[in-house]
């Protein structure tokens, strides 16, 4: 992707942002008491309250059917809410739908495109649809930033899946939105393209665009998000700064590969709550990684007690729990 084009694009976005001076602390999206019951009776959202900060990357995680897409769809106007309120930069998304929707760009989960249109036409169409006057220079910048310029005259049906996803992003950026929803943006794309997209998302965030993404790839949230929300069963289970969440819920494990297998954990080591694994040839010590400094002293004590008990080890390694572990634990806990 062309970073210089993306920078130009960001510059243009900033210049066109009438709200650039607004407080960063002010939520750009406020969702309160949002409820959605589908015609079949499925209660997809249950009194959801959520605030999205201006300029952040917010990752919404949740298992299949948790309500991620429904939540995005209600905010973007694709699904009628059953109750509650959504405000986008202060505008009610139902009553003031023109102002609210004009601020939002949406990249849907499915690769939905007019198959026989050209890249240029479909991106230009999106800009017009969102009420903006034609601006070929902006469309050119968007296409160049997403490495689509060479494909501008190609019909969408001839593009690869990854290219089609880029086109969806280009369509969403065509009207210079201040808020971008990415619903599973890298589903089914290769690793290289995924990393390219992460770069694009970060650069958009740097230009002041607020990004809300749903993903199944925990790695994606871990890599990019400033804050993380977990939704399960239609309810927001947790919203936390990513770093704080990792600190709060993260645990560390020390695995010792023993010289000689043990039949059981010696009584002298009972205080450490050790686990035996790999037929007694590994000792696993799980400890709290959030209290800086504490872990060092407890490991020193453990190693000393092991030595005293005559237990020798040939190797060791440590591992910090990933966001995926935290997410799985959270969802398991609440179900």
């Amino acid at each position, binding site marked *: 992707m062309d970073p210089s084009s993306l920078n130009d694009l960001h510059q243009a976005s900033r210049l066109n942002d009438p709200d650039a001076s607004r407080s960063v602390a002010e939520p750009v999206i406020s969702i309160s008491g949002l409820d959605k019951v*589908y*015609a079949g009776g499925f209660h997809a959202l249950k009194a959801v309250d959520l605030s999205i900060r201006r300029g952040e990357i917010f990752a919404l995680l949740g298992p299949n059917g948790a309500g991620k897409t429904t939540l995005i769809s209600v905010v*973007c*106007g*694709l*699904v*009628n809410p059953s109750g509650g309120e959504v405000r986008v930069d202060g505008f009610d998304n139902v009553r003031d*739908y*023109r*102002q*609210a*929707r*004009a601020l*939002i760009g*949406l990249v*849907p989960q*499915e690769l*939905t*495109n*007019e*198959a*026989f*249109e050209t890249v240029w*036409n479909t991106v230009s*169409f*999106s*800009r*017009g*649809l*969102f*009420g*903006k*006057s034609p601006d070929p220079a902006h469309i050119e910048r968007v296409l160049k930033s997403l490495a689509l310029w060479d494909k501008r005259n190609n019909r969408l049906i001839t593009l690869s899946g990854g290219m089609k996803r880029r086109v969806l992003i280009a*369509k969403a950026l065509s009207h210079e939105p201040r808020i971008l929803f990415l619903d599973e943006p890298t589903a089914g794309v290769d690793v290289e393209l995924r990393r390219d997209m992460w770069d694009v998302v970060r650069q958009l965030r740097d230009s002041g665009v607020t990004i809300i993404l749903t993903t199944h790839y925990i790695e994606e949230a871990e890599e990019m998000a400033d804050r993380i929300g977990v939704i399960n069963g239609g309810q927001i289970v947790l919203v936390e700064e990513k770093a704080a969440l990792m600190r709060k819920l993260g645990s560390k494990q020390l695995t010792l590969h023993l010289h000689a297998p043990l039949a059981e954990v010696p009584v002298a080591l009972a205080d450490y709550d050790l686990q035996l694994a790999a037929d007694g040839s590994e000792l696993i010590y799980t400890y709290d990684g959030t209290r800086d400094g504490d872990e060092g002293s407890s490991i020193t004590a453990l190693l000393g007690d092991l030595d005293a008990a005559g237990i020798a080890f040939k190797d060791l390694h440590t591992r910090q729990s990933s966001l995926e572990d935290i997410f799985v634990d959270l969802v398991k806990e609440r179900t």
Partner: protein
Amino acid sequence: MNLFPVRAIYAAEMARTRRTLLQSIVSPVISTSLYFVVFGAAIGSRISEIEGVSYGAFIVPGLIMLMLLTQSVSNASFGIFFPKFSGSIYELLSAPISHVEIVIGYVGAAATKSIVLGLIILATAGFFVPLEIAHPLWMLTFLVLTAVTFSLLGFIIGIWADGFDKLQLVPLLVITPLTFLGGSFYSIDMLPPIWQTLTLFNPVLYLVSGFRWSFYGISDVSLMASVTMILVFLALCLAVIAWMFRTGYRLKP
């Protein structure tokens, strides 16, 4: 009203017409020409003039109306159905655009295409029979009103349909039979009295009759009855579309 979204939809729909020019324009023209050959030449030679108009010329308004109705419904229904089918309707529903603007974009494009088609068929007819248009303004009024009204009906069908089969259902099973039985190819005076009475319940009769009046000054029902009928149908279609958007029927869950 923001004209940019209307223009975007309209231009995209017209571009689709250009991409499918053969299907959009050439095919109906060929079909109409075949009607002239079969009805005008083969049958027309056996039927004397109807109220002073040669049979070939008599069927011109009916033929145009047949194409106008079927093409208006087909264009408009496909226009809104395809984004639903492909999923790209998400963009329409998430855009800062009013329901009125959406309807003007899609229905405007469908009606434009039908009107152009109607005029092409009219020109084609000129090669087969001598044509006269007694009331050109009324002719254009009927042409536009009918194209818009049936494009609105097509838009309704496009939203209602959840598969390609349903998309074809109404044009094939309702519009075409009603047009054939609505005096397109005959005057209802030629029918037995009971059929004349029954035909009066066919709304298409009023459209064909009014349209034919604008050409030759002859009609099966009064001009006012024709105008009233098309305006009532127009209002009905607008009401249904307003209800569909208000409730999100088959658009928004």
